[in-house]
Every structure is written in C-alpha cells, then in structure tokens.
C-alpha cells in the first residue's frame, strides 16, 4: 500500500476514455443476448438511414397489376416483390424498410421528450423535497394510475389523431417513470459527501443539481430510456393499429397492421411481416437494455 507509487505516466484524455470504454465493453460483451440485440439494432439503424438505397420500390407506389401478391417463395410469388404486396399493390419489403425510419424516429422523439421532462421534474422534486416533492410526485402518481395505452388514447382523442400527437401523448405517459427514477437517484446522491463538498467549494443549487448530482444519476436513466424506446415503438404501433397514430399511406408498422386486418385469412403475409418487424426490433432493444444495465450498474457500485 505504498501511497506515493502512482504511476507517473501521463495519460491523455483519449487514453482514459478508451480505458473506460474498454471496461464498459468487457461487462457488456459478457451478455451474449445484449450483443445480439446491439447487432440487430445497428442493422435497424443502418436500414433506416439507407432506406432509399435499400428499398427496391417506392413505399407508396401502387402496382395495380400486383394486388396481394404472395412472397417470392410461395406459389404465385414474383421475383420483383420479395415479401409480396399489400391490398393496393404496394411492395411489402420497401414499406417495411421505410417503416424502420418511423419506428426509430418515434422511439427517439418520445424518449428524448419524456427523458428531458422527467429529468427536470425529478431533479426539482428530489433536490428540493418537502412540499414541492409531494405536489410533483402526487401528480406523477395520478398519471401512473391510468393504464398507459388508455391514457395515450384519451390524449390523442383530445389532441386529434396523427403521428405527432401520438408521440406527444406517449411521451407524457412515459414521463413519470423517468421523473420517479431521477427523483430516487437524486435523493440518494444528495446525501453523499461529495455534494456537501461541492457546496463547501461554493456551488449553488443549480450547479449542484445539474453538474454535481445529475451525471451520477444517469446510469439507471440510460437503461430506462432504452427499455422505454422499445415500449414507445410498441405503443406507437398500437395507436397506429387503432387508427390514432400515423395515418395511411405512411408505411408505419402498426398502421400497416391495421390496414391489413381484413386480409388476415386470405393473405397472412401482409400481417405477419409488420408484426415480425415490431417483435424483432422491440426484442433487440430490450436485450440491449439488459446488457446496458449489467454494464452500467456494477460500475456505479464499484466507484
């Protein structure tokens, strides 16, 4: 335990960051499911970015001579439509590829709105405590008391159907989760000595909240954000399915499902593929979230 034996090697900022990243990857990569989830998620992102290059057809182009064409490996399938076409002759594969854009967009917008709202509310409640905390948290409890999809539906009914309003509604429904999580983390961190130390150094309340406490509360929030990302995709699909989300002809996966309802017996592929797309992306993101939790949580305990 010689105290002065710090290796006097000068580590650059980049070297330190690399070291921490390596440590993170060590824990993340031990969870095989998480790695698989990450790979699928990256593919999903790439698909969304390069959708115009990947898609063989325009997603809204209707081929009147090719209504409900089955996938290529089934009898009657055509090489031009690998996954078949829907009731108005649009290429399924192209629609699914462009649908990835919608899903990612919805996930990112909903999570960012819910996360930033939740962090601000949670920080204020956790940091100031007393009656402010009581008032804020009771309001959050009221929101949480509603079944989430039902509340989103009500909000959309008030705001009017459409993708933007659906996203706003879902974000409002999710926001209390983030607020509660932030509040709990802030209350725990607030007691730690380093916060008192920062106060002795002269830090004011705003600085204590944003610069001292918040960075130490991020790990559970990141995990929650990933998990909410997939729920947001799912809820947006559900709203789309109920006709309250993205409106046709937008190739959003949930809306595609809704449009295909009546053909479920005659042309199962128009229902199966959007359903599978939702299932796979939600599963992948959840697996990734689990891995993040494993990688980030023990790290907090160690330091």
């Amino acid at each position, binding site marked *: *335990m*010689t*105290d*002065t*034996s710090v290796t006097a090697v000068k580590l650059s900022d980049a070297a330190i960051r690399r070291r921490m990243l390596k*440590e993170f990857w*060590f*824990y993340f990569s031990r969870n095989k499911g998480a790695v698989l989830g990450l790979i699928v998620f990256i593919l999903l992102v790439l698909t969304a970015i390069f959708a115009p290059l990947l898609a063989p057809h325009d997603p809204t182009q209707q081929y009147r001579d090719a209504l409900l064409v089955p996938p290529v490996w089934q009898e009657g399938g055509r090489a031009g439509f690998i996954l078949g076409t829907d009731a108005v002759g649009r290429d399924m594969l192209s629609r699914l590829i462009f649908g990835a854009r919608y899903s990612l967009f919805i996930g990112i917008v909903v999570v960012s709105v819910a996360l930033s709202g939740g962090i601000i509310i949670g920080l204020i409640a956790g940091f100031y405590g007393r009656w402010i905390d009581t008032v804020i948290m009771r309001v959050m409890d009221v929101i949480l008391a509603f079944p989430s999809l039902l509340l989103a539906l009500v909000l959309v009914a008030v705001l009017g159907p459409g993708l933007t309003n659906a996203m706003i509604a879902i974000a409002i429904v999710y926001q209390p989760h983030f607020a509660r999580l932030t509040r709990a983390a802030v209350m725990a961190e607030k007691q730690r000595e380093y916060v008192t130390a920062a106060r002795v150094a002269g830090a004011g309340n705003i600085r204590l909240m944003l610069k001292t406490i918040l960075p130490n509360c991020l790990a559970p929030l990141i995990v929650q954000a990933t998990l909410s990302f997939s729920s947001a995709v799912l809820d947006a699909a559900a709203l789309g399915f109920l006709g309250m989300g993205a409106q046709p002809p937008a190739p959003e996966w949930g809306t595609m499902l809704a449009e295909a309802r009546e053909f479920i017996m005659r042309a199962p592929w128009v229902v199966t593929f959007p359903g599978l797309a939702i299932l796979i992306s939600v599963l992948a993101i959840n697996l990734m979230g689990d891995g993040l939790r494993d990688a980030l949580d023990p790290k907090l305990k160690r330091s």
Partner: protein
Amino acid sequence: MSLLNIRNLTVRFATSTGAFTAVDGIDVRVDKGEVLAVVGESGSGKSVAMLAVMGLLPDTATVTADEMTFDGQNMLAMSPRQRRRIIGREITMIFQEPIASLNPSFTVGYQIEEVLRFNAGLGRKAARARAIELFDAVGIPEPEQRLKSYPHQMSGGQSQRVMIAMAIATNPRLLIADEPTTALDVTIQKQILDLLMKLQEDSGMALILITHDMGVVAETADRVMVQYKGHKMEESDVLTLFENPQSPYTRALLSALPENATGDRLPTVSDFFKAADAQIAAEGGAA
C-alpha cells in the same frame, strides 16, 4: 496441542484483469484455548484466509492447501455434509458490521433460537431457555424482553453482543472474530473485547481475532500473526511482537502508531514497505 492446523494455504480469485492471489502459501496454527490475532492492513488477505476455512468465499475463489485439520480431522477430505457439522457448530464466526449481520425482518430471539434448534438440536422450549441464558452471559440486560426486539431497535454494541451470543450458542471450540469492534465506539469496543476475553477464559475455546488495530492486539492476543499482501510477515507471541519485532514490516507498523511518535513527525513508512516487499521476494526465491 493444535486445534486448527493449516499448511500452505493459497487463495486465488478470478477477476476481470486475470487471477489475483489474495493469500499466498500461509501456514496457520491455533492451539486449544489460545487467542491468535491476525493483523494486517486492507489488502493483506487477513480475512480471506479465515473465510476460506469457513467455506464462505464466492465461487470465483480457488482455495488450495497441503493440510487443513481441525482437532485431528482432515477437513480437505470431508464431504460437504461432514464439513457443515463442524462449521457453524465447532467453528463459528462473527463479523465487523453487527447490524448488517442480523436479518432485519426477524426478532433477534427468533434468530438465536433458530441457531439453537438447528445446530444444537434443542426443542422450542429448551431453545428459548438457552437463548435467555446466552443473552445473560453476553451481558444483555432484561434478556426476555430483548429477545422480542428487532435488530434496528438495538445499538451497534448490543447487536454485536447478540452476534456473540449466537456464535457461542453451540459451545464452539474455535471462534473467529473478524474486526468485531471496528464499527464501534471505543468505550463499547472495550466492553466487547472484555466480554470476548471473559467468554474465552471461561469456556477455554480458541479465539482468532482478525484486526487492523495494534491496540486491540496488545489487549487481547497470546500470539500474533502479521500479514501483508497475502504473505505472513511475522508470527510471534504478543510480548515479543511489541518488544522486539522480528520483521521490518512489523517495526514499520508499530512506528506508524501515533502514540509511539517520537518528536514531531511520524516515520515515513514506504521504506519499510520496500523492505517487506524484499522479504516476500526473498521467500519466493528460497521456496
């Protein structure tokens, strides 16, 4: 007559950065009715060796020893069942954080009676009577009332008394106390140490006291084992250790005590650590 005898004990842990040797070829011997203090700073592996004897290490640890006998019985060749018959009955242990060592959901009475019924095979009524007797022996006032208390209703000192009562419930022949007073105030520490010594003298059990505190060693031990980075630096009787320490590392530790300070400054100890490291290296070369 030796009670516990361990030769060449090594404990390795698998970690993210490769294998880490916490205890490196240590011999431990405790005689019947003896108080052995194991001294070391954090990272010396002083607790790990005893946890290995108790079988309380996590799966990532590999324990090897040439010999491990308790009262002439070979512990290495034992089935897990036979081992359990010794550990928890013949050898018991108490820990540093008494409040954390007790289950917060049950009364202390329930917890000690459970020990008595499973490890001493007593009936419900006999267990209750013996629990009261034990609480009395460890100096808890109004034992009948206190049996109904939950751990959070007790102070640190009282919780440690409860832990001691549980540990001596089966009349063990060896009690291992891992930093039993570190979390306590000095006046309480004094009471707990006095209690441990009195119980030891009355029952004639052997006591292994793991500590970092030289003062505690001075007031309790017969024999002392000093550990550093998993190596044994010195093993002496207590008087020799303080009067004429054999290893440079022990000398360093003693000179770092503020009460031994001569003049204005405490000695700089890193030089002594270099000596200690050299001692380890020399042993490694010889072995």
